[in-house]
Every structure is written in structure tokens, then in C-alpha cells.
């Protein structure tokens, strides 16, 4: 369970959200500039709330006194443009979170190989991100965010970088992968087809507030 109750003054409005996210996928929709990405960044610790609390499976990540930095939160984040490290190979990208946790090289290699196989990019481990299609990049980003077994997963417009043809296929793949996860998962999208595909529950944001919470 992910519990969020945060306030933050932004340039155009005061962001103020109170929400509980159970295991499974919850979609976040809303016009651009409504605060969808801000919500993800507040949960990941990339933004500091002015006040309020963030709590993940009973652990307080942010409250009036303490603020856990992003690198100690164990929250997977898939960025809108995937943010793959261009100077690292696919395998190094996927293993990055394991390296951060000082996994021994052997264990790291085995885990990365297993992940690449699972995401059907087993032959791409030595490639660099600029040599991949956007669909492949998306899988690398997802594998990288899941490699260290995060306690929550945040996806910011994971399909927006794809062209319409690949989009349908990748959406099905992503849905299958996310369905297997048993962690709170927030997926930001502005596409109604995506929203319908991924989640029964939808949070609609407008000017930094939840204006709709339901199917």
C-alpha cells in the first residue's frame, strides 16, 4: 500500500493530493500541466513536498521531519522518454540498480540475463540505447526499473514515445507484465485507450487535485 498526502505550492496552483494506492495498477489521467508528473516525482522523492506524508508499505518516506532521498526509496521509475543511459549498454542499463546496491558481478550478470530473456531482448544486451527501436527502449526501461525488485512502480506516459503501430502491441505486452506485479503501480497517461487497458481504477487530476477517483 502506498499512502500519499502531500501539498506543494507550484507556479500556477497548489498541488494537494490525498490518495491510497493498493497493489496493482492505478491509472492517472488529466490534461497536460495538471500535476500528473509532479505526483510521480513527489512519490519518488525527486521533488520535496512543502508538507504532508508519503508512506510505502508502512515505511515513512516523507513527513514533516524526515525526507528519504530518492536513492533510498526502492521505487522503480519509468520516465516518459525512458531516460536510458546513452553511454551504457543495454545490460549495464538494466543492471544499474543492482550495481547501485553492490550486487556481486556474477549475481548481477545472471539476474540481468534472466530479465533480458523475460522481456525478450536477450540478444540486445551488448547494444547501446541509440541502436534500439522505441519499443525495445521501453522494455529496457521497464526491465531496469524492475531489476532491483522495487516496492512500488511509477510509469510516466510509458507509451507516448511509440508510433501507433507498435503502440498496440507494446500496450498488450506492458499490460501482461504489469498484471504479474504485486506492488502499488501508478501509470500516468493521457490516452483513453491506455487508461482502459491498464486499470479499473482511474484518478483524474486537475490543477493539482484529484477530481475523480473511480472506474
Amino acid at each position: 500500500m502506498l499512502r500519499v498526502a502531500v501539498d506543494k505550492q507550484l507556479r500556477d496552483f497548489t498541488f494537494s493530493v490525498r490518495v491510497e494506492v493498493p497493489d496493482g495498477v492505478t491509472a492517472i489521467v488529466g490534461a497536460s500541466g495538471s500535476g500528473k508528473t509532479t505526483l510521480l516525482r513527489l512519490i519518488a522523492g525527486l521533488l520535496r513536498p512543502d508538507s504532508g506524508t508519503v508512506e510505502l508499505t508502512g515505511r515513512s518516506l516523507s513527513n514533516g521531519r524526515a525526507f528519504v532521498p530518492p536513492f533510498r526509496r526502492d521505487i522503480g521509475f519509468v520516465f516518459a522518454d525512458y531516460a536510458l543511459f546513452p553511454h551504457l549498454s543495454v545490460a549495464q542499463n538494466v543492471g544499474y540498480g543492482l550495481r547501485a546496491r553492490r550486487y556481486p558481478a556474477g549475481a548481477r550478470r545472471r539476474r540481468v540475463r534472466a530479465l533480458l530473456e523475460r522481456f525478450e531482448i536477450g540478444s540486445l544486451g551488448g547494444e547501446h540505447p541509440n541502436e534500439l527501436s522505441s519499443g525495445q527502449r521501453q522494455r529496457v526501461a521497464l526491465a531496469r526499473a524492475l531489476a532491483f525488485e522495487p516496492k512500488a512502480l511509477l510509469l510516466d506516459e510509458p507509451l507516448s514515445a511509440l508510433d501507433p503501430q507498435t503502440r498496440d502491441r507494446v500496450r498488450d505486452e506492458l499490460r501482461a507484465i504489469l498484471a504479474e506485479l504485486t506492488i502499488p503501480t501508478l501509470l500516468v497517461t493521457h490516452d483513453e485507450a491506455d487508461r482502459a487497458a491498464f486499470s479499473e481504477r482511474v484518478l483524474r487530476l486537475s490543477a493539482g487535485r484529484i477530481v475523480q477517483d473511480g472506474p
Partner: protein
Amino acid sequence: MIRAAIAVASALLVAFIVLPLAGLVLHLEPRAFAAALATPSARNALRLSVVTTALSLGLTVAFGTPLAYALARGRFPGRRVVDAVVDLPIVVPPAVAGLALLLVFGRNGTLGPALHALGITLSFSTAAVVMAQVFVASPFYVRAARGGFTTVDRTLEAASETLGMGPLRTFAYVTVPLAAPALLGGLVLSWARALGEFGATIMFAGNLTGISQTLPLAVYLDLESGDVAGATALAVTLVALSLAIVIAVRALARD
């Protein structure tokens, strides 16, 4: 017509740069070259140049990298002023820099008595050579590094942090590798500027064999004393050193 004018202008400037350098090499007599480099003062100058530029480069990286990062990323009051101040040594004449260093760090300078009380004499020492080099050369590195850090996509640094790397490791594994071409370019410029340093060095550190007589100062002294062959040999050594570093770094940067 315009293309011809561009070609002529380009050719003239390139020729103007190449001709004197070629002239240096043409003036060189191989036997005199070996003999000139074998003299103790030439060896001292070469050793001193290598040691002091290595030290000044190390200091420039150690202090210039955090400064460049702060200028690229930080939002602090007076950032623009600091930015301008850092660039000042590039436009201040080296002789003025040397005089300024002498007036502050020299024995009778502002900080002289305090340093003397601590048993430290800076002027006319090897330390003074390094200080002069850092003063005139570090801005080249800081400028390039600042530009390099500015171009690194901050989302990549954010991604690194969400994956579990703290700020220092993120800097080492993401920011520095991605800024590496700019950092290397700045290093080369800064090192070359330090290697060629003359004006500030002779004002602040003097021209003492084995202590402050670097290669450019030795070239000057040889020429002053009428030893054109010796001056030419050292000058060619300087050019060869610079060229070797530039080529090596370009090869590294391509990988």
C-alpha cells in the same frame, strides 16, 4: 566569387599559422638538437615543466570541477558575478596576473608577513610557478566543464537516483562520463595554456634554473644569451609535447 574569397582567406590564415611552426623545425639541426636537450638546464626546464603542469592540472581539476558543477547547476546569489570572475584571467594580461600574485602572495605582499610567520615563502619558488599556471590556465577548464555539465540531461541524473545511486556516485557514473568530451577538451586547453605560461611565471616566480625556469622561460633565456640553436631545440620540444597531448586526447575522445 564568395567561395573563392573564403578559400583565399582560409588558406592565408592557415599558412600564417603553419609557416612559423614549420620554420622552427626547418631551423633545427639534428645534432644540435640532441646536444641542446642534453644540457642540464634544458633537462631541468623539461622536468620542471612536466612536474609543474601536472601539479597545476591536478589542482585545477580538484577545485575547478566542483566550481564548474556549481556554476552549471547551482542557483545561488552572485552566480553570474562568480561566472564572470572565473573568466577574468583569460582576458587579464599574464604580466598583470604575475604582478597581482606578487603583490598579494609575495614576501612584501598583502599576505606575505602572515605566510612568512608560518615559514612559507611563495614567490620565486616552484610553488609560485604552479600558482601562476593555475591562475592563468584553470579558467579554460572551468569554462569547458561548466558547458559540459550544462548539456547533461538532468532526467538521466534523476533516473540514476531512483535506481539507487546517491548524488556522488551519480556524478561519477552518469554526469562525468556524459560530460567527458567537454572535460577532456578543457583539460587539454588548460594544460596547453599552463605549459606555455611565461608572463605571470617570470613576474611571480622568476627565472631560476631548476626552481622556476620552465621550458618557455628557458627558450627566452637561451635566445637572450644568443643561443638560437638551444632556444629552437627547446621550442620544438614544447610544440611536440603539445601536439602529442592534443592527438592523444582526440583519439581518446573518439572512443
